[in-house]
Every structure is written in structure tokens, then in C-alpha cells.
């Protein structure tokens, strides 16, 4: 994970776009919190500068 985050930083996309969380299927509330947190983080970071259909 840290390796890929480092790669994303080196490339210039930003390692904060990627995160790993551990939770079980019974943790619905936590899942909602995580989804909200990541959505907020990505909104602040802005869209993927490479856009759609980059082929990767």
C-alpha cells in the first residue's frame, strides 16, 4: 500500500487518492463514514488530471 501510494506521489497523481481500510460486512455505519471521508478527500483533491479513457 505504502509502495503504491509512494508511486502515485512520484507520478504526480497523489498518494492520498488511495487508501486501505479494514472492516467487516457488519460494519455498515463505518462503511458509510469511510465512503463519505474518501469522497470528501477526492473532492478537495480535484478530479484525476488524466481524465477518462487514459488506457491505464
Amino acid at each position, binding site marked *: 500500500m505504502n509502495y503504491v501510494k509512494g*508511486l502515485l506521489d*512520484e*507520478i*504526480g*497523481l497523489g498518494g492520498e487518492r488511495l487508501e486501505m481500510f479494514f472492516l467487516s460486512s457488519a460494519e455498515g455505519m463505518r462503511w458509510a463514514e469511510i465512503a463519505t471521508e474518501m469522497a470528501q478527500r477526492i473532492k478537495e483533491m480535484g478530479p484525476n*488530471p*488524466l481524465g477518462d479513457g*487514459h*488506457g*491505464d
Partner: protein
Amino acid sequence: MIVAEQKPLDEIKSLVSDLGMADPLHGKVLVLGCGTCVTVCFAGGEKEVGILASSLRMATGLDGKEVEFLEATVQRQCEYEYNEAIAELLPQVDAVVSIACGIGVQTMNEQFPETLTIPGLNTTFLGQPTEQGVWEERCQACGNCVLGTTGGICPIARCAKSLLNGPCGGSQNGVCEVDSDTPCAWQLIYDRMTALGKPELLYELNDMKDWRTSCDGGARKIVREDLQLSVGVAAGEES
């Protein structure tokens, strides 16, 4: 084995733009790996080719360039016969980024001189994986091996000063003064020879080491006439 590590992505990107591409905004580059030493030190194998090519695609895309990156890996990039497998890809590319060791990069440039092959790795040393994820230098290819007299521990590679007669005054508690993580090679040698029951051999006078076989003085060459196909046939030539 030869141990190498990948150059920083920014450096590889600059080398590609500055050297590899005639048109600064468009191009086609082959990322070429090697299946031998650099695979087992996780620097230049097939997986690393995939990761580097993806990274370069994204990074050059962010820079506003359109560069297509092809991917390939050969079994051993230091031998002409293995590189023939990718020869047909070369006419269509502007340059090759090789993540083989320096020998592979040079072989590619020699074998296919019309295509520039750029290094993607820094080849660092001859070494051993001492634990998962850690490689340490063990040999400097001095050409005149003294391991028989030192209990199998190399004073050329493992002593910071390559001393041949015992430790210097900087050896403290079995540790080299240069770096506290580095054991004193001569302490290791003494301990090993003692464990082997032959410490007295360390007091024997050996002949002066012949350094003419080491890398100072130019590139070295070995010729085995018993193995040559016919005398005078160079690599890649028909006999």
C-alpha cells in the same frame, strides 16, 4: 548476483524526453526488462516493467505529452541471442528504456546501434540477499580471489579500506568506524578462522596481491579458446 535499483521516476522521465524523443510531445518508447539478476532483486523484471511503463504513461500524460510505452522482457539482456526476440519492435520506437543492469543497456546499444537504449536502473554492486528485501555487497570482482586465506570472508569488498593484513585502529567492538551497521570484516575473518581452528594461518605471510586483475586499468577480458566456435568470431556474427 548483480544488484541494481531503479532510478527515480523523474530522472527516467527526463532522460526519455531529453534523449529519446525527437518530437517533445509525441513518441513511442519500449520499456525492456531482464529475467535474470534484476528480476531477483526486484528492480527490472517483468513486473517492474509493467509498473514502470504504467507510471511513465501516467506521468507523461500529466505533463501533457502523448507517449506510447511498449513493454517487453527478455531472458538475459546481456546476450545477443536473447535480445533477438524483441528486435522487430525496435524500428517502431524512438528509444528504449532498459531496466536491465548496465551490461544489458550496453549490449542493447551495441547490438542495435540505430536505436538509443537509455538506462532505467543504477547498477550498484555484486551482492547477496542477506534477508528478504536486503541486499549487501560481497564481491568487487578483483580478479584475484583471496577467500581461501580469509575463511570465506572478503576483505576487499567488506572492509571499507580493503585492507589485506588485518583490522585498522578504527575497528571497535567488531564494528567498522565508517558505519555502525557494518561489521568489521577482519573481525569476522578472525572469528571465522578461530572457529575453523586455524587462526595461526592468519599470521602466515602471503604473496602481495596482484591488483593488475582488478578493474583499474581498463575493461577486462577473458578468452576461452576451448569454448569459441571459431577463433575470431565475435558475438552476433555468423561463423
